[in-house]
């Protein structure tokens, strides 16, 4: 066992940790909010916003 063997284990552990964070937050988010709210983003809304900025600018 040298430093690199420990690093290998550390990398596995850190990967699992990041994965776990993502999955837990994903499940939490999906169960807290309604599907309509989560998928309510529309392309045009943001475009209308930029147009507004243009006119003002």
């Amino acid at each position, binding site marked *: 066992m040298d430093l*690199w063997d420990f690093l290998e284990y550390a990398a596995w552990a*850190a990967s699992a940790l990041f994965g776990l964070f993502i999955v837990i937050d994903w499940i939490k988010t999906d169960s807290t909010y309604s599907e309509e709210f989560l998928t309510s983003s529309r392309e045009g809304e*943001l475009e209308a916003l930029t147009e507004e900025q243009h006119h003002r600018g």
Partner: protein
Amino acid sequence: MANAQQTEHVGLARVLGPAHVWALGVGIVLVGEYMGWNFAVGKGGAYAALMACWFAGILYTCVAMIDSEVTSTVAAAGGQYTQAKHIVGPLMAFNVGLYLVFAYTMLEAANAITVGFLVDTVATMTGHEGGLDQRPFIILAIMFLAWLNYRGVLATLTFNLVITAIAFTAVIILFLATSGIFTTSPLQHKDLMSGPAALPYGWLGVLAAMHFGLWYYLGIEGTTQAAEEVRSPARSLPFGTLAGVMTLAIAATLTWYVSSGLMPWEYLGQAGVPLFDAARLSGSTFLMVLLGIGTLFATLASANGCINDASRAWFAMGRDRYLPGWFGAVHPRYRTPYRAIIFLVPIALIFALGAPIDQVITFSILSGLLEYTFMPLNIILFRKKWPLESIKRGYEHPFHPLPAYVLLGLCGITFFAVFLGYGTQLVAMIAFYIVVSLWFHFWRYRFVNRGAQFTMPWPKPRGY
């Protein structure tokens, strides 16, 4: 959180400035100078690689000009996908969306493979025996960056700005240190490129080198994906993109100059981490460590930008029901397309852990090439359907239609270059896109609302 619940809808957050656009564009591409470009040397020799570098530079200048004009008008996540939807038509848009997702996801996989290779090299150099399991490091790179992307775009691209700047500075320092300005130069271009080593394949090799010549710049067009998150897209996107192409043309030429002055072309043409090798040959430990860190940062910055861009494209297609609508979700707190980010993680892992790197790179290059071939068609139709006076553009590119035809011609040459040596993949790849196109046209398109997907506040196009 309570705040987000009160507003009735949730969208991406508009938080980025021009420096982030530069970091996104250059960050994805700079890794191309640290690995991959040198396969062009293998396909045609050192001079051929330099010529390919400049021809590819012309190609990408056309790409940046055309893209800037359209994007400064069509500012939406999804970038070229959204452009195609408004200008050419739904099936083209679906294909372009897939080009984007595959070009970036494959590039991400190639970056992760390089991280694993680099860690292994360093472990061997520091005396580790028995080999290293590269897998945990490949997985860690992808998981960490996915997590960063999941948590929000501002932190993600600020991180990219810092590591990209460091990696770019490392290339400049390597050039200055070996150029002979301060000490005698170790570069020996004259002898290394004499006789048959000048153009080992003749002029055909120059053509063939165009294949990997694209790798010097591949991904710069990804800046457009940030359109919904940039504060003033009409100004920031053209500025960030054009500054990015100039940065890369400089970095690419310097990289070529230093590397070809230190390594025989036969070695350089197959090297895994050429700039790191160049630093090693310069005889300076400082340079070696610096370029090692530069390689690591460049690969991370690139993979990071790729996750960002691929997920935006996938998200935009989900939002329009080109793909299952489930993917069109935005995280209420982090304001990121979180389901698209999650979905692309296992895909990147499958290719990073299971496929050889030159295949993955070729898959990425081909998807990019198909996308660049679409761009001239796009701009020609754009100017025809909406002439300059009909809608206000944030940026108008000069000399139209000359850049479009130059780009089309260079794409044709590059198709031929890929055909030399990698013809089977080229055909397999296009067969894939044909099958997918038929699937979309005859099946998937029924779930898409017709008029509603046209979201730009534009007048009716000419001729319809």
